[in-house]
């Protein structure tokens, strides 16, 4: 197995993020996948982005400009 390195963007583990832990992942260039040192997440960039989109969904007002207070 190859040494894990940082990826091109320093992605956090999307599964740890779901429980609000900022956990850097390592990238395995041979398998083109990211993996987490804490939980057992493993996935390619598309999977990370898919889960990050899911994470954002909890912010129901994230695209809304609120001006009345």
């Amino acid at each position: 197995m190859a040494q894990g390195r940082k990826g091109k963007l320093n992605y956090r583990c999307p599964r740890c993020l779901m429980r609000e832990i900022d956990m850097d992942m390592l990238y395995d260039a041979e398998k083109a996948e990211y993996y987490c040192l804490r939980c057992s997440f493993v996935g390619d960039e598309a999977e990370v982005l898919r889960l990050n989109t899911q994470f954002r969904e909890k912010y129901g007002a994230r695209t809304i400009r609120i001006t009345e207070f």
Partner: protein
Amino acid sequence: MTAFYVNIVHRPEMVPEYLQKEAEQGKVEDLTRGAVLRESLDIFRTQQQTAHDQGLRTTIQMTYASLFNAEAVAIAKDHHARFGDEIGSTFLGLQCAEFREQFRSKELAIWLFSIEDKRRIVDAVFGKFHEVFGFYPTSTGSYYMDAELVNYIKASYPMVRAAVATCWEEGPKAYWNANNSWYTLLDGGPWNPWIPSKRNIHCPASDSDDDIGLVAIPHLSRDLMAVFDGPGSYYGTHPQNLLRGMVNEDRELPYFKNLVDQYRSLATYNDGYAYNMMYVGPGWMSKSGRWEADYALLLKSYQEGMAYYGELKRQGLAQDLTMSEFADVYRRDRSYTRPESALWRDILYSSRRQMFWYADPSMRFCLDMNQGGALVDLRPYAAKLVRPCGVGTKANQDASYPFLVQSLYRAGYFTHYAGEGAVKSCKIGHGQEQADLCTCRTQASFSVEGDTRVVTLEPVTIEFADFSVRVQSIFRLTEGSGEIEIVRRVFDSTRPGVEVSIDEYITACYGTTEYPEDLTGVRLSLIGATGSETIDYAYQCREAELAEAACVEAVVPQVDTRLSLRADGPALGYLREGFSFSPMYTLGVKKTIVEKGELRTWLKVEKAS
């Protein structure tokens, strides 16, 4: 008259905490590495220019490391002369070759050194500052400044009058968020500027004798709801923190402006005064990006955030002050008893939820309108606990101000067992039926009657098996009283002549973290004209009650606090000791009314000794 004051703070940090992490990526730690120094100064220049382009003045907080860098010093002098920026000092960014040589430590947090080291470091930092600039700074800061540290600074450098002194609600949540490796255990302080007590920095000073001598400013203006149950570094006036929290959609971040606007709206609750501070460390603007955000997005979000403050200033809706200027303005018309209030609404999850935050020299508390106005956080500031932190102290890293109630760390209404969680609420009952107002979502409004702030909740309907009543809760806060007056009004019964009980209670404990503390030594008492009852806490699940109790109280020596509850007329008082699987104590006052009526109680927090 409404005034919205903005502090923009920048620091030239020669070895940003996060850039140092590059060492992990195959580069050996080298505090003098040229590339890192150059990038750090570039970031500082970019941040300064972003503010100046918007016509905003800044406070430049010189780090110890930057005082040894001629270029950083020259930029500060130039920007002070040309733009009117204040040159202050900070205890962030201590680490540099000179510091290592003098203090032989990799410690980065000023509040975690021993008191002897704190004093030596203060002298080194202020001495070097004076050598470089020819004067002493009037503002300083760190993520946290303990009272012992500030007392030393004021004794030796009395000209200091402002300090960044805490990160609001960075405690166990921040620690967890950072994979249990970020030691800002600082829960329990005010969210907006305050004049701290000499005895504990978290507590607002009671009077001029207690005044520590400077105005404290929180690091960032944070979302008062999202940060109560989420990481402090996801939801504040720090655009890159919002990217960390992934509050952006694609490359847009309307939440930043929503947050600023909600802070502006707090003028409604604070005699026309509102405040914001933006303070982004250079590590957040790294050319190599930060987590999922590339440099272009980091820069764009910073520029847009600053542009919004610039726009508000041009419209006459914001005043950009330096930290020391703000301290003077803040003190101008402020009595020590004046509270800080905030009826905060959700701007993130689209839930319509509201929370009401209040802080004065006696206490800080929070009401959750999603739980019928239940009190979910209570800090006994009246105790003014002397609680030093750092090496050689009992607290060590745990610099939080203790709570009596924290419903997220200690369950609140919902528990996984019949035991109780920490919360203050009210139960409405009839026969064997009972409903806790925690289960009745509502909304609140705010008003002022003379020296009393009033939070009025919309009535909720309680459905019993064969009738219903409406219940309204009103919280009255009379300035300087150290009490919360709570009115529970029952009306609109659908069955004439029905008996309804009103049971006002507080279930509390004490602590600074999620884990239980030993309650041995806590004394629960009922005091009335006809007698008294006492329970010395021993986890024995005992209960006591007294008809016509004048006062129901708990003395918690561990936090030097007396917590008491009294009613406006004849009412039954009761006490409940807990047990090990339910390490709480409960104080309550109960009254039965016929068809309609009210129970008025006062919750008081005092120093026990």
